[in-house]
């Protein structure tokens, strides 16, 4: 399914160092008492996989031990995008002369990795002018050509010394990207210091989860997922928590999304996107129902188009889960495909009326919500 694993900044920077990409000196702590002596201005940065870290107060400065400890303490008390901050990166504060944006990402339209360089970094990236942004496709069969490096250097108009450094950084970034199965390697900003050195002040590394087995050394313990989403993931199911009321269980991502879309026509919103995938195992259906029940939806809507997945198997799974888990909320089932008659009979015996038409099933689920 090709999900993605984002490394926390510190792990990303460790990878950078391994590939010879310069980063600020720093260390990670989960207890402010472990902060060492402070002799120069330092950054204190929340290590969470969530956007908006800066705006949420997750990035601070300090020049004395007291300031740094205080900042670290405050950050460790934060929740950012609903996530408790459990660790903090303490690192030297760079003397910024200039900021650049550099990233390598997998582009789906061009079907190739793309190097992007913006002649302006940091928070300002979003406002960059078109002529400040340059991209190059990098073909893995030949790698990052010198000619691309030359064009990048010309775009940035760097002095000699940092130019040489940048060409090394770009080559190594490509190597990291390709060898480590990355979906994204981003340096935002790549800082040119007042001393004339290039240093990656931030590191965002996203690894292709389908390739994670090749990189057992990487520390993937944090994901940008809710605990329930993570639990589903570990059980091999794709679950997304939403902010509505109806738990939708369907087979196939497209069909699940289509079901959620259709609910909205009846003014109902989903609580859960749960893709059963292609299975014909009653236990998997039960497991899906168990996850579903944990999300506490007001109504459950099951939509199965049976092919590999047999309809009767699903029916059995739903009934078994309802009974074993003691699910009391309404379950609306729409079922089509292989063995649909048998499924309908079994569901009916179990007290559930199966719909044939998806539109009708959605309408029913939405109406149950209003009764609620």
């Amino acid at each position: 399914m090709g999900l993605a694993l984002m490394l926390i900044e510190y792990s990303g920077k460790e990878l950078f160092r391994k590939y010879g990409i310069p980063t600020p000196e720093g260390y990670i702590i989960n207890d402010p008492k472990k902060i060492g002596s402070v002799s120069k201005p330092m950054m204190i940065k929340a290590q969470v996989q969530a956007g908006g870290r800066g705006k949420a107060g997750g990035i601070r400065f300090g020049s004395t031990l007291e300031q740094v400890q205080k900042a670290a303490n405050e950050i460790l008390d934060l929740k950012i995008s609903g996530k408790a901050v459990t660790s903090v990166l303490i690192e030297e504060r760079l003397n910024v002369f200039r900021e650049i944006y550099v990233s390598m990402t997998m582009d789906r339209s061009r079907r190739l990795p793309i190097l992007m360089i913006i002649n302006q970094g940091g928070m300002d990236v979003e406002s960059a002018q078109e002529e400040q942004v340059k991209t190059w496709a990098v073909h893995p069969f030949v790698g990052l050509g010198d000619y691309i490096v030359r064009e990048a250097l010309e775009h940035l108009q760097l002095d000699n010394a940092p130019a040489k450094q940048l060409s090394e950084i770009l080559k190594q970034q490509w190597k990291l990207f390709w060898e480590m199965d990355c979906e994204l390697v981003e340096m935002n900003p790549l800082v040119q210091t007042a001393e004339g050195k290039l240093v990656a002040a931030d590191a965002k590394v996203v690894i292709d989860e389908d390739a994670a087995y090749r990189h057992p050394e990487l520390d993937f313990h944090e994901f940008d997922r809710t605990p329930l989403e993570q639990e589903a993931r570990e059980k091999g199911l794709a679950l997304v928590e939403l902010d509505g009321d109806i738990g939708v269980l369907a087979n196939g991502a497209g069909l699940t999304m289509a079901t959620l879309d259709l609910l909205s026509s009846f003014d109902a919103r989903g609580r859960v996107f749960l893709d059963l995938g292609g299975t014909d195992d009653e236990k998997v259906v039960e497991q899906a129902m168990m996850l579903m029940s944990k999300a506490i939806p007001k109504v459950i809507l099951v939509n199965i188009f049976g092919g590999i997945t047999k309809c009767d198997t699903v029916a059995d799974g739903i009934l078994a889960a309802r009974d074993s888990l003691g699910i009391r909320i309404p379950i609306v089932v729409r079922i089509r495909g292989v063995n649909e008659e048998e499924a309908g009979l079994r569901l009916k015996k179990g007290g559930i009326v199966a719909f044939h038409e998806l539109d009708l099933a959605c309408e029913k689920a939405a109406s149950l919500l209003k009764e609620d």
Partner: protein
Amino acid sequence: MLMGPDTKVLVQGITGHQGEYHAQSMLDAGTNVVAGVTPGRGGSKVGGVLVYDSVMKAVNATGANASVVFVPARVALDAVLEAIDGGLRTVVVISEHIPQKDALIMIEYGRLKGCRILGPNCPGIASSRYGKMGIMPTQIFKNGRTGIVSRSGTLTYEIVSALSEAGIGQSTCIGIGGDRIVGTSLIDVLEELESDPETENVVLVGEIGGTAEEEAALMIKKRMSKPVVAYIAGRTAPPGKRMGHAGAIISRGAGTASSKIEALKGAGVKVALSPSGIPALIIALITV
């Protein structure tokens, strides 16, 4: 089209659970399945199909020129490279969870060697005339003149069923796969359907993520003479969440359903708001 009267199909990973089931189903659909391949299982038979140890042996013995791949993700790259080096012209990759890097390598190597890759993580092709290569449920199809191209699996079956029930038959149905990196794009298939004499009109089934539908809209505007109708899944999906597979994600405002729907409408494509709305759009085309 990707399948024709000369298509001789090989099933890689035929002795696995999925491979065995779908090889049989392909045979039942009238597909010219000529061989199976599983290393170390050469000489055995699956549903009357002889199994070979390697693609080369299977090709030498049977003249196979296309393959459907059911092997596990970790060995999929090797299986596809073997198929390409074996001289096959079309490889349908059913396997899911293939690392993007491996997908990219197989697609580009196929391009170099003149081999079209469909997928990975795709349901394959169903042809009204030549059977199927992949896992689409045969029973929902009905012969006819509507071509279908889709990024989705079961959602497509939903729409095909609706068409068949409404009396609208299909010429060819191609699922390109839900992963972000796929070997055959919506545009590639649209080009094929445009030049396919069996196809009169086209259903495009898209979903959130990427800009493939927007690019398809441009192509439709410029080069399609046949009418196209569409359905796009994910109108209510929240940004930043991957809805089940790698492709379906809205990021930084790009990849939204509304952007895709707007682009398609701009290209003269009628867009249905639910899968069940598609047949009516096709009927409207025919009766115009």
